[in-house]
């Protein structure tokens, strides 16, 4: 398709679309990513939007962005700095310039750089005119004009027409990356099926952008990112939140338990709830509760009555669930609590990501109140850890907290679609009708799990509750020795899960100068940084945790073989506190960032190098 024959092949590229929150940057980015994915690129995306729904035009705080990294190699994160920035107005350029690589391409809608917009964004001079962008390749395109013109003969309002300008930008970018615009059309058709006028206007503006770039030889060279060398299989692009919902649905199917979701909307976890609500055909019962407390309490009720019960939330909602988690712990019922962490404390920065609810997950309840805590590290593996959370919860009859993050929940990446039949079996310990041995708190001698006796079953009538109860019999009691026993049993039951989880693994050598420890969304940047240092010959390895409580059994063995250990987190140091408690025999260095932003590779490398050089 390219008119210009000058095509540069790239292993990977980072593209970021930025504009007003009403400019449709999220859709643009998603379409770009889907098109690249369908072609066969590996990728990871990250949408970054303000808390305001439609913030005032042309303001810095109103900037909405969508970043994607595509590659012919394995892509582990949405990337630090971008090769191409598409900026729909001055404010978005201003807010994002620092993220553009030197010599990177900046495509701007030159129509949007009028005096008013420049003033509102805080630019004193037009940056397109004062040479301040000389370190970049700036491509000025009259994007709004192109949109308007290409739609002139359609009966659309001027507003609707300008709303399509994002498709012009996408057309230009598609041209730049030699994307197959025909598949983008198809995505548009599916998305807006039934709304012909919208399909048509988007199609036209997309084509117009593409043609404009081609006709005007807008770029010295276009780029081509070859197909990634992916393992055989069927793939799709998936966000962490969607993957989380799917993992739970798969666990329901495989365990033969109906799924019940009790949830209350909260950014950035709402999309899990939305995804469940879409799939009534799979039998999931979705209860949008009046608040988070009703969300979790209805789930506890559903669990008691035999469903795989899930509740999803983010920080403030997780706080509200504290008391009820205690009830699930003492009643020893299965329950999966998903916390898509966001930046705190309190309401904090709701649309920004952070890893600061880990200690709350471990300790945020009255009394000695242990739960299993696990975490996902990429949008796609949210599927597997959600599945695992459900499995552990049902098989061990205890609540599980699954920690993800806004960055994972909203971000997307390629997901190799598994066959649900190949996922591990799930065998909840369901009590049999009229089992003469049944006692509410009789335990499996190996896992210590009690049985799940479902109301309606003959011969198993029993009562449980939030009071301390006798082991085995289950009647309430304040017997001192029994309370100590039960407290230990509840802890031990969680501890024994270490026998059911995989060993912790190391990326790189099993011993060396520095072991980099992380958990959650930071896998990608840490991995890249460590790999690069390894390539430079440094004795650095990575170990990334998904199982937080209990920790894998071999954790200590891994730590033992490194001279130094550094724990990197997007908080003030929470996992490191946990390690100090669980493995006090080691010394831990820390690298922490509390900015609502992911790590960038170069800051990590700098830090690691610094440590390696210290003797």
């Amino acid at each position: 398709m390219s008119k210009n024959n000058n095509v540069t092949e790239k292993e990977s590229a980072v593209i970021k679309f930025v504009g007003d929150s009403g400019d449709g940057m999220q859709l643009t980015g998603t379409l770009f990513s889907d098109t690249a994915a369908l072609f066969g690129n590996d990728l990871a995306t990250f949408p970054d939007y303000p808390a305001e729904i439609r913030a005032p035009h042309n303001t810095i705080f109103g900037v909405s962005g969508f970043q994607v990294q595509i590659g012919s190699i394995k892509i582990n994160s949405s990337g630090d700095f971008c090769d191409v920035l598409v900026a729909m107005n001055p404010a978005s350029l201003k807010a994002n310039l620092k993220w553009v690589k030197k010599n990177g391409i900046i495509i701007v809608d030159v129509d949007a750089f009028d005096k008013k917009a420049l003033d509102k964004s805080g630019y004193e001079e037009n940056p397109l005119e004062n040479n301040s962008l000389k370190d970049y390749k700036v491509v000025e395109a009259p994007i709004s004009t192109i949109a308007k013109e290409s739609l002139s003969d359609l009966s659309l309002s001027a507003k609707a027409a300008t709303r399509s300008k994002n498709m012009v930008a996408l057309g230009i970018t598609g041209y730049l990356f030699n994307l197959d615009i025909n598949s983008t059309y198809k995505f548009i058709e599916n998305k807006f099926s039934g709304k012909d006028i919208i399909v048509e206007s988007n199609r036209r503006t997309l084509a117009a952008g593409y043609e404009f770039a081609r006709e005007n030889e807008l770029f010295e060279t276009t780029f081509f990112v070859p197909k990634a060398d992916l393992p055989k299989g069927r793939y799709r692009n998936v966000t962490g939140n969607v993957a989380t919902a799917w993992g739970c649905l798969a666990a329901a199917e495989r365990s033969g338990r109906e799924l019940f979701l009790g949830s209350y909307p909260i950014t950035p976890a709402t999309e899990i709830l939305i995804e469940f609500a879409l799939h009534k055909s799979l039998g999931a019962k979705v209860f949008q509760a009046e608040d988070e407390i009703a969300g979790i309490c209805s789930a506890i009720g559903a669990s008691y009555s035999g469903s795989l019960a899930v509740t999803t939330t983010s920080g403030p909602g997780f706080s509200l669930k504290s008391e009820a988690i205690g009830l699930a712990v003492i009643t020893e019922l299965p329950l999966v609590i998903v916390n898509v962490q966001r930046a705190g404390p309190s309401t904090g920065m709701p649309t920004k990501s952070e890893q600061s609810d880990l200690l709350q997950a471990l300790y945020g309840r009255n009394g000695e109140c242990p739960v299993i805590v696990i975490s996902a590290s990429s949008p796609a593996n949210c599927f597997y850890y959600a599945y695992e959370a459900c499995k552990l919860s049902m098989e061990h009859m205890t609540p599980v907290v699954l920690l993800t993050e806004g960055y994972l929940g909203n971000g997307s990446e390629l997901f190799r679609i598994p066959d649900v039949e190949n996922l591990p079996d799930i065998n909840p310990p369901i009590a049999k009708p009229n089992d003469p041995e049944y006692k509410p708190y009789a335990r499996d001698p190996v896992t210590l799990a009690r049985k799940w006796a479902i109301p309606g079953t003959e011969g198993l009538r029993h009562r449980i509750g939030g009071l301390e109860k006798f082991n085995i019999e289950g009647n309430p009691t304040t017997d001192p020795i029994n309370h100590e026993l039960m407290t230990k049993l509840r802890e031990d039951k969680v501890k024994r899960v270490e026998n059911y989880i995989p060993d912790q693994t190391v990326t790189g050598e099993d011993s060396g100068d520095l072991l980099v420890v992380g958990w959650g969304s930071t896998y990608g940047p840490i991995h890249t940084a460590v790999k690069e240092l390894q390539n430079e010959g440094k004795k650095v390895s990575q170990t990334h945790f998904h199982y937080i409580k209990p920790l894998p059994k071999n954790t200590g063995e891994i730590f033992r073989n490194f001279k130094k250990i550094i724990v990197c987190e997007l908080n003030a140091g929470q996992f490191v506190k946990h390690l100090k408690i669980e493995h006090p025999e080691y010394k831990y260095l820390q690298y922490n960032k509390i900015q609502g932003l992911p790590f960038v590779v170069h800051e990590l490398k700098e830090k690691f190098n610094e440590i390696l050089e210290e003797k």
Partner: protein
Amino acid sequence: MSIKRVPLSEVPLTKEDFVSDQIVKWCPGCGGHAILKAVEKAFPETGFRKENFTFVSGIGCSSRFPYYINTYGIHGIHGRANAIASGVKIANTGLSVWVTTGDGDSMAIGGNHFIHTIRRNIDINILLFNNQIYGLTKGQYSPTTPKGEVTRTSPHGTIEHPFNPAGLVMGSMGTFFARVLDSNVRMMTEVVEESSKHDGTAVVEILQNCIIFADKAFSYLTDKEHKDEYQINLKHGEPMLFGKDNSKGIILKENRLQIVKVGENKEDDDMILIHDQYNPDPGIHRMLGYMRPPEMPRAFGVIRAAKFDTYDYLMEEQIRSAKETSGIKCVNDLLNSGETFEVN
């Protein structure tokens, strides 16, 4: 309309099928004992299979109930009984779900779940033990304690207007509301049975005497001298008569319920209201719920039992219809839906 899917018992049941082996730990003389008896009596009458009864409670004296009856049961946390019960029922619609809760549990900390459960018309039964006091925590005023009452936390008398549970139920568009006295075991038994048959959230307010911390809170209604004048027992289809020898009737005049002496005036006699508990319009039910001595008698019995779709039924319907129409039949279908591509 919701279809009750609680399976019926194959053998006839008796009270003994529900008597628990646990020691009942309420104070001697507590109204709870009579309520327990009424429930044990009513349950065999429902015809439901005994394994399908499930009790849910919060925290409070009233919330100890699940331990004292031989059914499935979950003793929850304070204020959350209705939220837990909502989950129990939605997840497992074949159960007959019963909440026992107190005026603190459902009107104070649990007020929100109470009104939302009612609004959604989830098919559960709420036995609200209204003793106008926090019993288990030893005598603080509750949201139903009469204004001015001296309690442990109101040494100078409370300054709060109490809730009328009927007001909240009607204000939340409730479909079933009944009021009974703990001392009237016969009526309690009947009302419990009627509640079990209602599709939707059935609220039964039980005026329960807490002999320790709010003793005689209802004696103004039950005293010999007032009993006849201050109580009216409503029965569907029957005229609203009360007083000694049913000498008084209730009519609606000038938008107010008023009392007439029976037989004094033909016109008045003709206006005496016939109780229609199934009336979908809550207008008169609301007025009945609010009636209060000394002007009017307090209404007892089933005040409202209107038919509306239940939440749990509508949810099952949506799932059923989605299953029929959607191409996604299993999770593999879901994972492979939308935009996917093959790498070979």
